[in-house]
């Protein structure tokens, strides 16, 4: 169920929980959040930013004494994942901006995540240290070496408790495999491999091997002058380790099976919606470009985001989506202006909730939208400091398209296009969402009665 107006018992009311980040008017570009991702249990929430940093938040244990405060997320670890680099061959800078973070499922006490910039993927291990060995024979407590001739007896070092320290160490660096900019990474359900996708190629990696990767998709034409289409996103099927999908700038999705061939140039399935001739314009192709593709948790559906809509596709039906949701159709008449100021190229992401019943995506003016697939109801909410009182219920927002503007509505021309919600995340099992608004991370939860 979904945020509504508080009338129906089943509706979820979304409340403000926390906001991370500074309130400064001038935003440092490095602080702009570029990716958000919960881990598989929802205990950890990771963000990456334009400055190449990763910040991991951990959910506190719920306190019996304060039941109205559901577990809050607090900083667990911060580290510099990527640094700016310079490609001397091309005389170009390689940005340190973190494009994507993907968690590995937890297999021992440590946490593992993949983070990537335009060119290099890194595997990070985040582990806790709460004990330290004491009582070495050959060095004293300060670490200075002892004079061996002064040692009269031997002792066994013991582990003593210390203040909790969380350390992040880079365990693998997967570099030099992408000529073009990496837009996606996806961990395979076998937990042994993962893929990285750039504009023209997709590579398959084994976590243990960094000096080699398999190229599984290559759409680079022999003559670059013939290039008309690029890869925009890619993801592995959540259960079938041989299956993945990738989307294109022409609004198509290809599903590939790695068992059929080493190079998956032939798709097993091809998803494309026929064009509506009445809506055709010079911008039709641009707005059909898919900015994100996500499998449902069940693995039965895929969701795609293009500039104006979110679509849900059934894997068994290739010729059209089963559901289409309008995110901000009022922008359709403004496409020329949005082309001029480049907003038409903004890449919005989309996410499923844990039960695949609700989907969420961002928009402008710090608005984000949720669509309930069962009730067909939708709501627009806003991530703003004004709504940031603890446990304040978020009020639904409405954009006025024409005619008379009601009191709480905002007109299309008043929308702030510099405030865009590109990245959001939904807790895997609970109604907790994380929304990245430029340099601020908002966490909203459903109301606890």
């Amino acid at each position, binding site marked *: 169920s979904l945020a509504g107006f508080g009338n129906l018992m089943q509706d979820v009311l979304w409340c403000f929980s926390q906001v991370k980040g500074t309130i400064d008017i001038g935003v440092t570009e490095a602080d702009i959040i570029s990716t958000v991702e919960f881990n598989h249990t929802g205990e950890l929430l990771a963000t990456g930013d334009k400055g190449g940093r990763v910040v991991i938040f951990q959910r506190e244990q719920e306190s019996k004494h304060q039941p109205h405060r559901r577990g809050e997320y607090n900083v667990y670890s911060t580290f510099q994942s990527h640094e700016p680099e310079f490609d001397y061959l*091309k*005389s*170009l*800078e*390689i*940005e340190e901006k973190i494009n994507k973070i993907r968690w590995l499922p937890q297999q021992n006490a440590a946490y593992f995540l993949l983070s990537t910039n*335009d060119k290099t993927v890194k595997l990070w291990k985040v582990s806790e240290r709460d004990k330290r060995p004491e009582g070495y024979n050959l060095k004293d407590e300060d670490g200075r070496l002892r004079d061996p001739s002064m040692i009269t007896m031997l002792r066994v070092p013991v582990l003593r408790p210390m203040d909790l320290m969380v350390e992040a160490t880079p365990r693998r660096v997967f570099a030099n495999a992408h000529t*073009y*900019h990496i837009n996606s990474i996806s961990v395979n359900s076998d937990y042994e491999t993962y893929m990285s996708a750039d*504009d*023209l190629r997709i590579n398959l990696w084994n976590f243990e091997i960094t000096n080699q990767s398999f190229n599984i998709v290559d759409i680079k034409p022999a*003559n*670059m*002058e013939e*290039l*008309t*289409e*690029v890869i*925009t996103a890619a993801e592995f099927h959540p259960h079938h380790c041989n299956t993945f999908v990738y989307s294109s*700038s022409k609004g198509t999705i290809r599903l590939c099976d790695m068992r059929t061939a080493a190079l998956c140039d032939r798709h097993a399935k091809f998803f494309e919606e026929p064009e509506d001739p009445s809506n*055709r*314009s*010079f*911008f039709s*192709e*641009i707005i059909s*470009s898919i900015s994100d593709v996500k499998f449902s948790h069940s693995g039965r559906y895929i969701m795609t985001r293009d500039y104006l809509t979110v679509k849900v596709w059934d894997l068994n039906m290739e010729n059209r989506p089963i559901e289409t949701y309008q995110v901000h159709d009022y922008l*359709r*008449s*403004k*496409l*020329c*202006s949005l*082309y*001029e*100021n*480049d*907003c038409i*190229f903004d890449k919005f992401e989309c996410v499923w909730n844990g039960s695949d019943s609700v989907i969420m995506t961002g928009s402008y003016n710090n608005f984000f939208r949720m669509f309930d697939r069962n009730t067909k109801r939708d709501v627009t909410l806003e991530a703003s400091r004004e709504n940031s009182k603890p446990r304040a219920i978020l009020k639904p927002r409405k954009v006025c398209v024409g005619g008379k503007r009601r009191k709480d509505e905002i007109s*299309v*021309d*008043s*929308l702030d*296009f*510099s405030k865009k919600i590109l990245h959001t995340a939904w807790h895997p099992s609970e109604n907790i969402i994380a929304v990245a608004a430029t340099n601020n991370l908002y966490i909203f939860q459903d109301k606890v009665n």
Partner: protein
Amino acid sequence: MFVRGLKRKCFDGEEDIEGSLAGIKAIPSYNLQRQSLLDMSLVKLQLCHMLVEPNLCRSVLIANTVRQIQEEMTQDGTWQMINTQSTGQASLDRLVSTDILCRSSREQAEGKHVSGYSTFNKDFESDQAQDSSETMSTASSVQASRNLQSNAWEMENPQENKGNFQKSLDQIFETLENKSPNSVEDLFSEVDSSYYDFDTMLTGMMSNTKMGHCDGLETFSSPTTTASNSNCKSDLNELDHIVEILVES
């Protein structure tokens, strides 16, 4: 409505853009819009060179838009009209226009392109108001948009001859015209293949220093035959020689 500092005034009347050639009165408006979209797209492609490494997806989408416009213009004959404007000019003019382009490119290398772009927008707005008269024919509307572009350039380089820049644009369109229906490829065609091929342009890969937008302009403007290039250079030398003599006397 838009990002602060960026002036935006563009034809958002989707109805106009989408409509077919409904009547003579509708044509100038549609063609003017389409022309401005083409111009805007070309500027965007040139600006690609300024970035850290241009976004390939964005470049491809813009290039596809340019292709679409060019195809439609070819189909409804507007492309022919632009061509008739330019034929009949002396070949010397053509060479001079190439010269102007080379010179302005070098001068642009200092990096005044961003202001040039906003200047373009500003001039576009004022000209748009002037051009709203419905009695204009298609030909003169095309002429008007090119006048406007030369105005934009004039603000950057006052000494540039207005007429010469119009001929420079002719140069671009001519290159496209000569190679139709695949003329858009000439936008990305190789002059010196190691430096200017499509991959190079779109991924911003150049051999030496960081490029300014002028490199894109050179790609657009380069004639398809090397003979023209050498003619250009020899004319340049000749002109220099003549100027030298004049100055000394």
